[in-house]
């Protein structure tokens, strides 16, 4: 490198400095309606972000005091962005939060309690209400649900009963069905559990099976230990059943993230979320969405999807609350359900949703959500619990000793609880 002109480097610094300052974002406008910032995780999800924009435009036009402005961030980096903004004291006014993460944010002081009208609060289904410490911090416009997906023709061919939420398969029935399907030789595997999806899918999808056995991720009475619930006899029974699925070849240990095998016909059943329902229904005209089996403590599925909250840094919480109240109107709940394919936040909206009319196969998801859904533990420790459970479930799937894997998980969760003074 040769600097042929004197002071080139000084000039570079000066020009760069000017360029940096010129390209900085301008300050907020000082006149007109008060600007209220909103962050959402929906970047890259065209249907959802379009709807949030439409909703916000409608809200802004409905009054003249506030103008809500949207910043959309990609889901995978959203939580880190919130943590960064909190450290910088730069949180937005309105923000969405994944249901099980909400207690951690409320505990950290990121969120302020909501003041939703009690009648509206009462009308919301359980999975869309985010309570921590008996206080409502977040509400969702929709919820997701999971189901066993299969085909009527498969069940009838092998003489397998169609279960209902009132009479779900027992654990023995489910295992027998898997054995029958596997031994038929018609499928590579009887079931696709989606183990190729990592992250929150593991606790969201698989911990309800643990809870159906009678175990849990943490003692929900005290929220101070996982001892006895994540490594007790019921949890061990779950672990052995879970490991057996793979050992007996009912489920492949090498499932990929694309989850195309049910559509290809190489698996007989799939355990999946409502977001995958349309693809399945479009592929097979005899598709069935079924409740999960009952392993003794009742059939369970996970609950709570993305919800809206108000940050504690919000200077206009009344504006943020007004936006949330506006969004909770039936009209918008129906729109969100129709266009994102999720379960509306109220039964009233579900009755008007295109997807959940009488006779629709998707109604099973509403039924599953209403009767089987269990909120993941509302504790600030949940992000740690989720990661620990994911590791334990993956280890057991890959052949680890069940008792040892669950004991290690309990130790790790309890260590985190103790290190944080039990999040008091």
């Amino acid at each position: 490198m040769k600097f042929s002109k004197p002071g080139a480097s000084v000039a570079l610094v000066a020009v760069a400095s000017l360029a940096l300052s010129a390209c900085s974002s301008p300050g907020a406008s000082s006149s007109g309606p008060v600007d209220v910032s909103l962050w959402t995780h929906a970047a890259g999800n065209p249907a959802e972000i379009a709807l949030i924009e439409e909703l916000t435009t409608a809200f802004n036009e409905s009054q003249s005091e506030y103008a809500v402005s949207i910043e959309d961030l990609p889901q995978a980096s959203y939580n880190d962005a919130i943590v960064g903004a909190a450290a910088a004291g730069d949180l937005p006014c309105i923000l969405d939060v994944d249901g099980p993460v909400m207690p951690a944010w409320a505990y950290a002081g990121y969120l302020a309690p909501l003041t939703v009208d009690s009648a509206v609060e009462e009308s919301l289904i359980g999975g869309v209400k985010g309570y921590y410490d008996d206080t409502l911090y977040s509400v969702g416009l929709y919820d997701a649900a999971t189901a066993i997906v299969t085909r009527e023709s498969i069940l009838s061919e092998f003489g397998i009963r169609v279960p209902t939420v009132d009479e779900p398969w027992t654990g023995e029935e489910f295992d027998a069905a898997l054995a029958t399907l596997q031994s038929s030789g018609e499928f590579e595997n009887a079931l696709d559990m989606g183990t190729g999806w990592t992250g929150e899918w593991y606790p969201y999808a698989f911990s309800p099976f643990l809870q159906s056995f009678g175990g849990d991720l943490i003692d929900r009475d005290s929220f101070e230990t996982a001892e006895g619930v994540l490594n007790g006899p019921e949890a061990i029974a779950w672990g052995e059943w879970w490991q057996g699925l793979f050992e007996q070849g009912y489920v492949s240990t090498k499932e990929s993230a694309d989850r195309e095998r049910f559509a290809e016909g190489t698996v007989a059943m799939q355990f999946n979320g409502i977001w995958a329902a349309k693809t399945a229904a479009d592929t097979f005209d005899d598709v069935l969405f079924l409740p999960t089996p009952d392993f003794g403590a009742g059939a369970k599925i996970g609950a709570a999807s993305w919800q809206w909250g108000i940050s504690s840094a919000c200077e206009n919480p009344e504006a943020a609350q007004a936006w949330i109240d506006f969004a909770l109107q039936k009209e918008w709940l129906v729109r969100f359900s129709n266009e994102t394919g999720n379960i509306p936040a109220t039964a009233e909206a579900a009755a008007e949703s295109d997807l959940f009319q009488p006779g629709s196969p998707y109604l099973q998801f509403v039924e599953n959500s209403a009767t089987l859904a269990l909120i993941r533990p509302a504790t600030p420790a949940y992000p740690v619990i989720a990661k620990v459970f994911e590791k334990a479930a993956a280890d057991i799937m890959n052949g680890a000793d069940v008792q040892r894997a669950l004991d290690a998980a309990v130790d790790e969760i309890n260590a985190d609880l103790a290190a944080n003074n039990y999040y008091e």
Partner: protein
Amino acid sequence: MTLRPLGALHRRLWLPVVYWAVGALLLMAFSFPMVFMAVSSLKPDDQIFLDLKTMNAFLPTGDVSLDNYVGVFARVPVAQFLLNSAFTSALVVGLGLVVNSLAGFALTRVRWRGQTVVLGLLIATLIVPFETIAIPMVFLVSRLPWFSIDSAGLQFQEGLMNTYAVQILPFVANAFSIFLFAQYFKSIPRELDEAAMVDGASWWRVYRTIVMPLAGPVVATAAILTFLPVWNAYLWPIMTVQKEDLRPIQVGLQYFFQENVEWGQIMAYTTIITLPVLVMFLLFQRAFVASIASSGVKG
């Protein structure tokens, strides 16, 4: 008697074959992921998965089109993200070369008390992972004074959040670059400085006209090693930049990881963001290889 020359002949014949065969294998090993990425970017998702178990994965077979690229441009402001990454990378590299070479120069060519301790402390900072200091750094930059120029004129503000500056300034001074410059400058004979000073040259003139013109290889190395992390920056921009029009290219990749992942679009996006780096490498291939070989640094 006749065997020896034949053996030598065999060696002469076989050595290039082995050389080229190993070279071809290495080429395949390193290029196949990129070929797969580029080829898959032209296929619909079901074709990608259909081809996965055969060599077709590396061939443009089936329903080949530019639909994934159209989808990418419709879904994400790719051009803006590319410009943002190019802008921040260019400034970090440009400013970094000036600042770090000056620091390296001061630490090795100018004699002052404590310079070894300072260099040691700088090197010690290399053992601290970025993730460890990310949150304190966010806290710090959010309170630094800054200025902007808009329609109302010069504005002063607290904090660099949501600016290009926050993506550039913290990475200009780079301990590893300083170390590289310092090491390289040590190898240039001091007599050159002394001779220039006898002729009345200042330190600045020595730096500018004696030392830097001899530092081509280390400049190239420092430029590469500074460019790549900034081009690939992910965690820092996530935490400090929430405005979409300031977002860099790597954060944009996350737009595609929704519940129903469209892998063809991901392949198209990664092809788009890999191309500039690939073109840069091909353009400066000789300088890169020479600089890395001469400095003994792995990229």
